[in-house]
């Protein structure tokens, strides 16, 4: 087991609405990202995945508020730090954050190199401009970005190139954690692939030590991250390796998500797509018990009254399979029972 780069323990954050109601968008979330690993977060819109990204940065501004829990980056607890300290001491060196619209955040009147100088000088005012230029050029070279981009203005670059440039700028200080929130969703598929390739290269070369990747596109997540967390209504409902999560989901909600994947590959045309009925609960007053129970076709009586926490499979799996070691899910029904129901349904679907 590698060294933990990011450890999140029972993190809870809330929005306070203008009617002074508390909305817990991230509710007791815990996970660990090891050095050199990447983790993906999947879920429907409004499940709290983007709020989780904002919360992890420790950079809170109203209406988002920190409630409880720990965020530990490479052994250092940053939860509860004040936003100004976070901006100076954490962003850039410990954590880099790339939102979907990052490419539109560049001031159009300045050259790319200027942004890099800003980032580096903010953390080390003594660096000489020549050193910075050399560093930037070298970094751009290994990432397959043309070096002359450094002397251009943001408006001269295409959307995909701009997004890659922004990622290169924000990771110039080799942060320990990269948080990427839908970094490629606004791009066409070819640019998306180049962005993903660059992020993977940066992981391989150690420019970023670990990554959290958030997207609603499951095939993308499968190709980018080592493991996947599924979020529902502010809580984690299942975690596991990417392959296990895509092809062998256990939680009924993850199962529903995975069954809605559409890819242009042979044979996929004849697979039955399923939908999850209903809508996610209102987080202003979440239902008691399992939050998914209302939409779950396997729900039992107890589900609506009994709240389950994340359970590791090791304790549940009868086979004792070691690859299941790191998996966990939040459901009352035992793993083997769920899997049996899924198998039965699949056979039923094929025979009809």
């Amino acid at each position: 087991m590698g060294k933990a780069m990011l450890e999140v323990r029972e993190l809870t954050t809330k929005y306070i609405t203008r009617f002074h109601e508390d909305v817990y968008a991230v509710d007791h979330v815990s996970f660990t990202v090891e050095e050199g690993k990447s983790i993906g977060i999947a879920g429907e819109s409004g499940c709290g995945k983007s709020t989780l990204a904002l919360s992890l940065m420790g950079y809170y501004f109203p209406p988002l508020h920190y409630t409880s829990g720990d965020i530990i980056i490479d052994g250092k607890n940053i939860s509860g730090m004040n936003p100004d300290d976070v901006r100076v001491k954490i962003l850039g060196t410990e954590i880099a954050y790339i939102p979907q619209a990052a490419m539109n955040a560049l001031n159009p009147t300045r050259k790319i190199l200027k942004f890099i100088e800003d980032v580096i000088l903010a953390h080390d005012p003594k660096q000489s401009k020549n050193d910075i230029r050399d560093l930037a050029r070298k970094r751009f070279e290994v990432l397959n970005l043309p070096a002359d981009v450094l002397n251009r203005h943001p408006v001269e670059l295409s959307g995909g190139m701009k997004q890659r440039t922004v990622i290169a700028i924000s990771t110039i200080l080799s942060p320990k954690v990269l948080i990427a929130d839908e970094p490629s969703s606004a791009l066409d598929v070819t640019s998306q692939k180049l962005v993903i390739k660059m992020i993977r290269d940066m992981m391989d070369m150690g420019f970023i030590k670990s990554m959290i990747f958030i997207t609603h596109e499951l095939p993308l997540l499968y190709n980018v991250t080592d493991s996947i967390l599924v979020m529902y209504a502010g809580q984690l409902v299942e975690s596991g390796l990417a392959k296990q999560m895509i092809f062998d989901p256990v939680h009924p909600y993850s199962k529903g998500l995975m069954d809605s994947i559409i890819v242009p590959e042979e044979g996929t045309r004849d697979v039955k797509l399923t939908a999850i009925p209903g809508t996610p609960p209102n987080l202003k007053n979440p239902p008691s018990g399992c939050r998914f129970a209302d939409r779950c076709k396997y729900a039992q009586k107890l589900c609506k009254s009994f709240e389950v926490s994340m359970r590791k499979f090791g304790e549940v799996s009868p086979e004792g399979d070691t690859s299941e070691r790191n998996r966990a899910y939040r459901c009352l029904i035992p793993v083997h029972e769920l899997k049996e129901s899924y198998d039965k349904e699949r056979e039923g679907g094929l025979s009809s």
Partner: protein
Amino acid sequence: MSEQAPTALASDLRQDATGIPVLSGKGVTKVFESGGKKNVAVDHVDFEFRQGELVSIVGESGSGKTTLVKMLLGLTAISEGDIYYMGTKRDISTRGKKKEYWKGIQAIFQDPFSSYNIFHKIDAVLLDCLNMRGLGKLPKEKKLELITEACSFVNLKYAELTNKYPFELSGGQQQRLMIARIFLLKPRILLADEPTSMIDACSRATILDMLLNLRNETGMMIIFVTHDIGLAYYISDAIYIMERGKFVEHGKADQVILTPTADYTKRLVNDVPKIHQPWDFSVNFGK
């Protein structure tokens, strides 16, 4: 509101196009002019859509697919070329003729939240469809019956919708209400412009299934416009691939996606992340 999982496989609902051509175009072109600069959004496209067919038009943003949709709907004038509706050249020169044309072609748009007039209740939206079909004079009970039928077609209960505003529904439900509207209007052709792109993946299947049912029950010709090649592959009988205002490739879905011939299609299929085959990073088309 209850929703049921789709009951039939998409493949069972697909069919081969044998019907008569309902909508076709020859050299359809749209040129935007601003400040002396000419911008060709749609560049001499030819197409032929047949009765009962479900055709996808696939293109990325900026490919001109939205402009083409507007021309097909008669919301934007055509710069050059002709569109043929039911075999004869389309004539929408007067408001009366336009109205007649729109009885035959209707649309579902991308964003359900901006598709409804927020000041109109659901009842008004649905009643308006009956007026358009010339059924405005039917007795109230009969109208109610038709509306209830349309709602149950999309798994919504009219009793739960009446006196509500569309924005009180979820995105998926709103989009289903759009389909109910189409069910009431029963046009020959339905243009669905990215109807699922604003909707969560887990409600997407329901919408797709309803579109397929609509086609199967009424023999409606559906033009499905999307940027998602996987989605196009899943739902369509035939696919047109659009790049920079031109159709670079078209044919049956299997043929276009599994054995693409145009470079652009190849790149598109290759660059989409996959789960059964490895995602190919090696080929760089140098953009």
